[in-house]
């Protein structure tokens, strides 16, 4: 049964692909509707709720004061983790973090970290003694496909609206965290032999490999990841990169619009 359903689904998706159609009627490069809400949780220093089609995720930012690494006495730190808890769907089970959730957290983490949008030196309080650590936690509540893009959007939106609780740490007045860029992620899944943007859960079940592209403000690449079994050609990558350039700008505008 478990093997049979994706097989039948795969046949259907292949047939639709021949006519350049998708299972939910979208065009190939068309995304589902996105609603972004920030500052929605009381105890998080920055928070975001993303409803991406039927996928729902929350992201929350917390800070801590810690001692810096000996080799980097003036640098703070950033950590981003994602949890695929059993709440997210029928297929998820309790237990230690799965490889899937580790990949998800790390891909989102890299996109934000490598864009350089956080100046780690600005997180220094006393060199060699005290620095700020930023922790972004992502909670997937409903997985209906493409949780990667939803998580990346939630993470950067929560980060960009975060307030450093300096008063609580006795280091002055609360201030907004300085984030110099809005890196966003765009994911493509091979469905019926060709790539589509923003696959839903059926397309993921009956599709093949996926490619995640994170772009920064200048359209520069900051993180790439290929997941699952399959290969692609350079020409295919060129095509989706072009699509990602336009799409990531739209996503960044969505985040920036949250900050009045």
């Amino acid at each position, binding site marked *: 049964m478990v093997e049979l359903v994706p097989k039948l689904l795969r046949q259907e998706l292949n047939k639709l692909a021949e006519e350049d159609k998708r299972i939910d009627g979208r065009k190939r490069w068309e995304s589902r509707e996105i609603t972004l809400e920030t500052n929605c949780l009381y105890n998080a220093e920055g928070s975001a709720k993303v409803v991406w089609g039927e996928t729902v995720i*929350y992201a929350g930012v917390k800070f801590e004061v810690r001692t810096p690494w000996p080799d980097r006495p003036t640098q703070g730190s950033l950590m981003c983790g994602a949890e695929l808890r059993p709440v997210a769907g*029928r297929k998820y089970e309790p237990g230690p973090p799965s490889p899937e959730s580790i990949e998800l957290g790390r891909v989102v983490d890299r996109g934000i970290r490598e864009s350089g949008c956080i100046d780690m030196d600005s997180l220094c309080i006393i060199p060699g003694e005290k620095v700020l650590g930023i922790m972004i936690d992502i909670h997937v509540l*409903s997985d209906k496909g493409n949780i990667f893009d939803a998580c990346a959007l939630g993470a950067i939106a929560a980060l960009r609206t975060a307030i450093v609780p300096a008063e609580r740490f006795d280091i002055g007045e609360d201030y907004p965290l300085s984030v110099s860029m809005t890196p966003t992620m765009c994911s493509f899944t091979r469905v019926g032999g060709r790539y589509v943007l923003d696959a839903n859960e059926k397309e993921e079940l009956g599709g093949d490999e996926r490619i995640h592209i994170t772009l920064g403000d200048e359209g520069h690449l900051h993180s790439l990841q290929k997941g699952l079994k399959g290969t692609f050609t350079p020409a295919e990558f060129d095509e989706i990169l072009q699509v990602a350039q336009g799409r990531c700008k739209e996503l960044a505008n969505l985040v920036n619009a949250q900050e009045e």
Partner: protein
Amino acid sequence: MGGYGDVKLLRDDGLRLDGRKIDEMREVEIEAGVLPAADGSAWVKHGLNVAVCAIYGPMEAHPRKIQRQDRAVIDVRYNMAPFSTSDRIRPGFNRRSREISKVTAEALESVVLVERYPRSKIRVEIEILAAEAGTRCVGITAAAVALADAGIPMRDLIVGVASGKVEDTVVLDLDKAEDNYGQADLPMGILPTTGEIAFLQMDGDLSVDEYNTCLQYNMKAAKEIHTIMVDALRRRYESKNGGEK
């Protein structure tokens, strides 16, 4: 229950620090059917607390040894998100969440008609996204609405409410400061139609009279929250039948 006498929790005019009367509860907002991946779901905002609950099932019970020949088992997971409290919590289960999950499951088993689904399992996933005192009660309320949304038959809804004692005065629905510095806390899961109690915990110090006042406050609050729960479910089914969906 810290029980520190030096923190002032009642104002000179008899109101509480956040301006509530002693028998007034925090504002409650409920929405049913918020998570499309789940068979039933609910979102509850109670004061500054936010809880989300997803129901999966009834489904096959795994592993086999947890199966019951005559009824369904209810598998509750109460979990606090790392960003739900002022200091970040390490992700994962701890002793507190295990205990709350266990007693919540037992409370829900007493309202759900579990004998209708022998050998199966109903998964109840409670996620606390923002915690500001009273999360186990908010979780119970969310679970009840989510179970109803999943179409699982129940004898009654179940409402999570709490009252307690601050500065020798019984108050309804403790907030964070009252929970930390108050003298007692009495959370209950109440079946609003029959007035039965399916969930009970307590810590601190209460006289019998004070307990009775707490009970009376809890019953009153349960009726109020019950109306909001029913309203949320009604809205959900209206939009399912006549609305866009």
